[in-house]
């Protein structure tokens, strides 16, 4: 799905939301197409990676006083129709962050073999850390409340798996409540993730390394709320 189509779909399904597209240094027509579809665009002058682009987005949300944000992939994998359910769960359960998760009994996302096991192990560990049952810790589909927006506007890791795994650790250590809702994800445009055991092992190793370091980090305070 092109970015234009994704933006239009979000406008249809979640009309009360403002859409921000963060362009991470692409020199193609992404920014223009997004603008034409009615989104605001943060056009980063240099490539910062996922973590950098996310933090820029959260900074915008923080400074403009948004109370809730939804993070959505630009490839159409995340269905905007699920947003209302995520927001509902946030209200009902009093969570600060709600993840739209695969492998939670909704949808048929199929990953088999070593990759699936690595993700399962990761989910188990993070469930212990966050104190909530999580099944999908590498999902980029999540809604955040004001406290999480404040946190992520200052502290969003830019390294591998930082945007998913490490951000959950940071949130938990800041005292935020994480929860999840099962969603059906649509197939990725770029094909399925690789199934090689070697790559899965490397993935798990790096994830564990990132997790260990994240867990051992000293606590940092939430940035102050805006006064104006």
């Amino acid at each position, binding site marked *: 799905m092109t970015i234009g189509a994704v933006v239009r779909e979000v406008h249809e399904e979640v009309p009360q939301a403002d859409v921000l597209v963060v362009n991470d240094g692409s020199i193609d027509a992404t920014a223009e197409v997004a603008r034409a579809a009615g989104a605001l665009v943060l056009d980063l*002058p240099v490539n910062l990676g996922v973590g950098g682009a996310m933090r820029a987005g959260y900074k915008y949300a923080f400074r403009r006083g948004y109370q809730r944000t939804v993070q959505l992939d630009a490839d159409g994998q995340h269905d905007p129709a699920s947003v209302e359910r995520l927001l509902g769960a946030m209200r009902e359960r009093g969570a600060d962050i709600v993840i739209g998760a695969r492998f939670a009994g909704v949808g048929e996302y199929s990953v088999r073999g070593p990759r699936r096991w690595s993700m399962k192990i990761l989910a188990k560990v993070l469930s212990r850390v966050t104190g909530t049952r999580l099944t999908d810790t590498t999902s980029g589909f999540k809604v955040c409340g004001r406290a999480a927006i404040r946190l992520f506007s200052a502290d969003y890791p830019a390294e591998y798996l930082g945007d998913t795994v490490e951000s959950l650790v940071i949130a938990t250590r800041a005292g935020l409540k994480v929860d999840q809702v099962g969603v059906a994800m649509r197939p990725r445009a770029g094909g399925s993730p690789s199934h090689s055991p070697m790559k899965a092992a490397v993935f798990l190793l790096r994830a564990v390394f990132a997790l260990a370091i994240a867990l051992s980090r000293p606590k940092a305070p939430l940035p102050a709320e805006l006064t104006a």
Partner: protein
Amino acid sequence: MTGYALAVTLCLLVVALLFALLRRRRIREKYAALWVILAIAVGLLGAFPRLAFWLSDVVGVQAPVNLLFATAFVVLLAVCIQISSEVSSLEEQTRTLAEEIALLRLEVRQSTELAGPAEQTPSTDAASADSTTTDGPSA
């Protein structure tokens, strides 16, 4: 303390130091990775000296200590190259950011001019033609 025990202790200290730096975000994972691998490798050799002898036999080096020095040299070289590459990338980024800021300043100036002379705040920039002198910041 024997040489080997010293080597292992130093490696443990290095790993601890790296962990402390990683913890406080003073160093990024990609830089720490090589050092951690090196520290573990040297630590292993210190703990099991026979490994060094066996390895140098396999590789065809006369004395294990030579192999150790050679390997350490290659690793340090790799780290220098990694850092040089990252610095080059940073210079390119800085350049781009400087361009964007200059362009934004011009845009802001132009849009305040369009808004009318009554709305302009006095400019604090010294008006200067495109100059290549290096006598410091102008504003």
